[in-house]
C-alpha cells in the first residue's frame, strides 16, 4: 500500500489513470475537469521516462475521436470533460460503443442546461446513462463517491473497457472533482500488450486484417450487427452491477443516491439514526447497468431518492422497486448541494 496523500479528486484520478497505463490523454479544457488535462500536460514534460502523450484537441468532438483512434491501436487512452463537452462527444460515444472501442471518458457534471454554471450537479445522468447519442447502445457508467473510489474506479474502467470492448464513463461531479481528501493512490498496473487487445489495429503482420467499422450494408446485415451489440450489453448487464447497501435490515426509510450526493446522504443517515429514525441506504455505483437487484423484494419501506437534478435516476429507481408509490424524490437544482441537515429534514417528512 502506498502512502496516504491529501489530493484533489481530479488530480488523484489523473495520477491513477497514468498508473493504470493510460499514457495517452486527448482533451479540451473545460471547468470543472481542467485539472485532468493540466496534470497530463505537466506529467508529459516532467516524467519523460513514462512516455506520456497529451494532446489539447481543438474541440471535444475531436478529442473523443482522437481517443477512438488511439484505443483502436490497443493502447489505453482517455479524455475528461464536463456536460457541454460530453454533449459534443455523444456522436463518438455511439460510434465507439458500436465499433467495440475500449475508450474511457471522465464526465465531471456541472449544472445545465445551456452553458450553465461550474458548480456541482447530477443533471447529466440521462446523457451518460441513457446514451445521448443515436441508436441502441449503452455506456458502462460508474459513479464514485470519494476521491479514493475515483482512483480505484478510474483504474478499473480501463480493464472493463477492454474486457467488454465498450466505452466506460466515469461520472463524477464538481464537488468530487475539486474536493481534496486523503487518498492512497493505487499502484502501477501490469498492462496487456496492444496486440492482445481484441481487434486492435497494430498492422496485419502475421494475422488477418483488423477493421474498425460501423457502416451498415442492408437491413439483414445491420440487424445482425445490432443483435451482436445487444449480446455485448447483456453480458455487461449480467456481470457488472455494483452498488452498496447499508443498514437495510431494520430500515423504514431507504435513501437512494449516488456520487457526492450519496456522501451527503450517508451523513444524513447517521444523523437520523442518532435520533432513532431507522434509515438505510442504497448507493448505485454502476449507473448502467443499474442495480435493479438491490431493490428486488423490498416492500413496506419508503424510498427517498436524492439527486442534484430535477429527477433523473429516480426514474430507474421507480422501474426497479416493487411498488413505485413507495418512492419519494428530493432534488436540488442550480449548483448548491443540500447539506446532511437538509436531507434529514426531508427524511423526517416521511416518518
Amino acid at each position: 500500500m502506498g502512502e496516504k496523500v491529501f489530493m484533489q479528486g481530479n488530480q488523484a484520478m489523473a495520477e491513477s489513470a497514468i498508473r493504470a497505463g493510460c499514457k495517452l490523454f486527448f482533451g479540451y479544457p473545460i471547468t470543472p475537469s481542467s485539472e485532468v488535462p493540466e496534470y497530463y500536460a505537466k506529467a508529459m514534460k516532467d516524467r519523460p521516462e513514462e512516455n506520456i502523450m497529451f494532446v489539447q484537441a481543438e474541440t471535444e468532438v475531436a478529442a473523443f475521436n482522437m481517443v477512438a483512434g488511439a484505443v483502436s491501436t490497443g493502447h489505453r487512452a482517455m479524455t475528461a470533460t464536463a456536460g457541454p463537452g460530453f454533449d459534443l462527444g455523444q456522436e463518438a460515444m455511439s460510434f465507439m460503443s458500436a465499433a467495440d472501442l475500449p475508450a474511457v471518458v471522465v464526465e465531471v457534471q456541472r449544472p445545465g442546461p445551456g452553458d450553465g454554471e461550474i458548480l456541482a450537479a447530477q443533471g447529466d445522468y440521462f446523457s451518460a446513462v441513457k446514451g445521448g447519442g443515436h441508436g441502441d447502445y449503452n455506456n458502462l457508467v460508474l459513479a464514485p463517491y470519494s476521491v479514493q473510489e475515483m482512483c480505484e474506479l478510474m483504474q478499473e474502467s480501463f480493464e472493463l473497457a477492454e474486457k467488454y470492448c465498450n466505452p466506460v464513463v466515469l461520472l463524477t461531479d464538481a464537488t468530487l472533482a475539486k474536493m481534496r481528501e486523503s487518498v492512497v493512490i493505487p499502484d502501477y498496473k501490469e498492462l496487456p500488450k496492444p496486440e492482445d487487445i481484441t481487434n486492435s489495429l497494430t498492422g496485419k503482420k502475421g494475422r488477418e486484417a483488423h477493421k474498425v467499422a460501423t457502416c451498415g450494408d442492408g437491413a439483414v446485415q445491420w440487424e445482425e450487427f445490432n443483435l451482436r451489440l445487444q449480446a455485448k450489453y447483456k453480458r455487461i448487464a449480467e456481470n457488472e452491477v455494483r452498488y452498496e447497501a447499508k443498514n437495510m435490515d431494520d430500515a423504514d426509510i431507504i435513501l437512494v443516491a449516488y456520487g457526492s450526493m450519496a456522501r451527503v446522504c450517508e451523513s444524513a443517515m447517521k444523523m437520523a439514526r442518532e435520533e432513532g429514525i431507522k434509515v438505510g441506504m442504497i448507493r448505485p455505483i454502476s449507473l448502467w447497468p443499474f442495480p435493479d437487484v438491490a431493490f428486488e423484494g423490498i416492500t413496506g419501506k419508503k424510498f427517498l431518492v436524492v439527486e442534484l437534478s430535477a429527477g433523473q435516476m429516480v426514474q430507474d429507481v421507480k422501474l426497479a422497486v416493487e411498488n413505485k408509490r413507495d418512492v419519494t424524490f428530493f432534488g436540488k437544482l442550480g449548483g448548491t448541494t443540500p447539506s446532511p441537515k437538509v436531507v434529514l429534514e426531508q427524511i423526517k417528512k416521511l416518518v
Partner: protein
Amino acid sequence: MKKELLFSGIGGQGVITLGETLCDAAIKAGYNVTFVPFYGQEKRGGRTMCNIVISDGIESPIISEADIMLIFDDRSLGDYQGLVSPNGKLIINSSMVSVEENVPDTVDVRKVPFNDVAVEAGNPKTANVVAMGYIAKLLPEVPFELIQEFVEKSFAAKPKLIPVNIKALSMGYEL
C-alpha cells in the same frame, strides 16, 4: 469525532491556503479530512470559501452547520452566518468586517483584528496565519505542533519567511 468548518473571504486573503494547511495537519493527526473549495467566477478578487470536515469515519464533505466559522469580509458574513451551528463559534476578522452579525445568542462570537495582530507580528500579510493560530486553540483535536510543522512546510521555498509566520501563528494561538 466530527468537526465541520467553513472559512470564507476574498481571493488573496489566504483563506484557502489556511484551510489546506489545517487539513494537512489533521490528516497527520490521523483523521479523515475533506476539503471542498468554492471559487467565484473571477480569478482574482472574487470570493473564496471552503468546507472542511474533520472526522473519524467517512462523512459528507458538504457541511450542515459550522462548528467553527471564520469570516474575512462583509459579504461572506451576510451569506454564510446562517450556517453557523447554534453551539458553534463564529470568528470574525474585525480588521476587515464592518457589518454586524445576526446569529442566535447561543453562538460564541469572537471578533479578532487579525490584520492588526499581523502587523504587530511584523508582516501584514500573515493575517491568515494569525487566524490559523487562533483556530488551533479552538480545535485541540488537531495538535498545535502539527499545524506549526505544516506552516513551516508551506514556506519551504521561502525559508526567510518562516520565522515571521511562526511568530504570527503563536500570537494567534495566544490571543
